[in-house]
């Protein structure tokens, strides 16, 4: 069983829940940027929640099935079509041998997750099938899909059913304008003035065009003013420089104090820019669904609020599992 790639889309990659354990040598977690939507797509087709799927950004691929399969598309509103006939997102449907899955234009969100019963069966590398394109590692030949690729599909563990869907309140997609991203100040927060810190959380930022799996850049807020200092040996002369250090996932670095960058699943593991804080784990999925130009506000939270948000996100996933059990 295989899926043939007729058109690859913009940057379609194989992703699962990622590859923990190698960040100390620069190999990031990788995996779906919207993990909740990835799990939903898998559960809809009868896979384990963490099976490998396709992550398509902004534009869907065109795929041909060589055997019958159950398929589901979740995440962004990237409307699927089977042999040209519209299908619902967040709903499982059957694709027959020889049928072609294509997509309409993106209506909302940024990343669609395409699950096929049996999962995408590329080789497991360092414990995961996820693609880390910067390191040419994992996924399908370590890269985004190209026309002519044939993706192996695993044997379905359960008999997937068509016509199952996920209720809107269980989808965990960004809601409201501007999108609120909760962040804990910290790391090198002391490098900026109090006024700059207040401005960071009160300004409305917009997603910049430079937004990918490594990180999301934001623009439109006031530049941050630094507390004066003597540059420490090894840090570099710019006030935003630090002695190269580790970067947490979700950390918010601000090179030159101008445009914040939130590191995501394919994060560079370290570098020489100071960070003002970290987006909490519960809100990382939301970033993966932001289109360029989307207005965003960073909302200041403390550890307790972050843990409450984490619990609520994990309960949402629990309810999704129950609904699709």
């Amino acid at each position, binding site marked *: 069983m295989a899926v043939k790639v007729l058109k690859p889309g913009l940057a379609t990659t194989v992703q699962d829940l990622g590859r923990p*354990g190698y960040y100390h040598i620069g190999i990031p977690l990788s995996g779906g940027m919207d993990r909740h939507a990835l799990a939903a797509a898998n559960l809809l087709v009868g896979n384990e929640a963490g099976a490998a799927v396709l992550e398509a950004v902004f534009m869907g691929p065109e795929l041909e099935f060589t055997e019958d399969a159950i398929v589901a598309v979740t995440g962004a509103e990237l409307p699927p079509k089977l042999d040209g006939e519209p299908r619902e997102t967040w709903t499982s449907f059957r694709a027959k041998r020889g049928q072609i899955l294509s997509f309409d234009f993106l209506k909302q969100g940024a990343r669609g997750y395409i699950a096929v019963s049996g999962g995408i069966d590329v080789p497991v590398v360092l414990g995961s099938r996820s693609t880390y394109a910067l390191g040419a*590692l994992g996924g399908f030949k370590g890269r985004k899909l190209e026309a002519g690729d044939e993706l192996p599909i695993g044997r379905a563990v359960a008999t997937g059913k068509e016509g199952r869907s996920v209720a809107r309140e269980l989808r965990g997609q960004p809601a409201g304008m501007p999108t609120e991203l909760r962040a804990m100040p*910290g790391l090198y927060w002391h490098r900026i003035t109090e006024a700059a810190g207040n401005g960071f959380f009160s300004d409305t930022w917009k997603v910049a065009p430079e937004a990918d799996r490594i990180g999301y850049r934001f623009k439109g807020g006031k530049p941050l003013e630094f507390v004066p200092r003597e540059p420490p040996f090894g840090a570099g002369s710019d006030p935003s420089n630090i*002695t190269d250090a*580790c970067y*947490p996932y979700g950390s918010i670095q601000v090179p030159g104090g101008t445009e914040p960058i939130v590191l995501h699943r394919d994060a560079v593991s370290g570098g020489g820019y100071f*960070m003002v804080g*970290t987006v909490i784990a*519960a809100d990382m999925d939301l970033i993966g669904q932001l289109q360029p130009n989307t207005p965003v506000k960073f909302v200041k939270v403390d550890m307790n609020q972050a843990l409450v948000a984490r619990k609520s996100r*994990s309960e949402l996933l629990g309810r999704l599992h129950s609904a699709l059990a």
Partner: protein
Amino acid sequence: MQTRFSFGGDEHIFAEVGEAMSLEAFFKSLFITNAVRDAKIKGVTEICPANASYQVKFDPDQIKPDDLLTELKRLDSASEKSEPVIKTRIIEIPVLYNDPWTHETLMRFRERHQDPNGTDLEYAARINGLDSVDAFIKAHSSAPWFVSMVGFVAGLPFLYQMVERKRQLQAPKYLRPRTDTPKLTVGHGGCFSCIYSVRGAGGYQMFGITPMPIYDPNQNISYLRDFMCLFRPGDIVKWKPIDRAAYDAAVADVDAGRFAPVIRDVSFSLTEFNRDVDAYNSKLDGVLHGR
């Protein structure tokens, strides 16, 4: 040195051992991250030493953030009492300095450089008070370097020169980063050298290129079959300047699967090193060459 701790969101603890880079700060971060690994703390998922800091990633569903912070602080103060000695490896890296590939690249991005009329090596020699490129190459390659961090991208080593601070080579990064750097470029930014493990963007000055692969996701290279990344934090590197003929021969050896890197086990004592840097470095050189 008083370590500064901060939560990086709900899944990371970030610890800054020193604001400035120093061998003492690096040693302490390496030491504590080893201790954290040995302690096998439940819920800890990633342990990352860096130049003068470290980071621990954890699952707050398995360990309370404050409990982990308490444990890290305990390990931090315990480390003050321990002897700064590590068992590590010394690795020889052949380098073709002033090579045609980084030269082509640095000319292509000249308008992003501090000195548009020279090369990166000429610029670095001048600002470090050395009278020629050859003198700079000698200064770069005569003492060994510590791998003080592995990261940014897969397998990329940051290297810290093992000499007194006044002798350390320094150079700023490019004014604006390049969009291209040849794979296996030997670069330098601030007080750190690095080897670019993959082709891509970069802002470090470019001095040369090594024929010796350091990252192989397909694990075809003989010495990368056990693991795809060569370097680990704490490794010691000695550059070996080579000429074009030796470079071409090494590339042919790599392609034919018969390239054998020079790697030796060694024990390093920071106290003894600080007592007489040059004598200690020549002892390390002896280990590398079996003397």
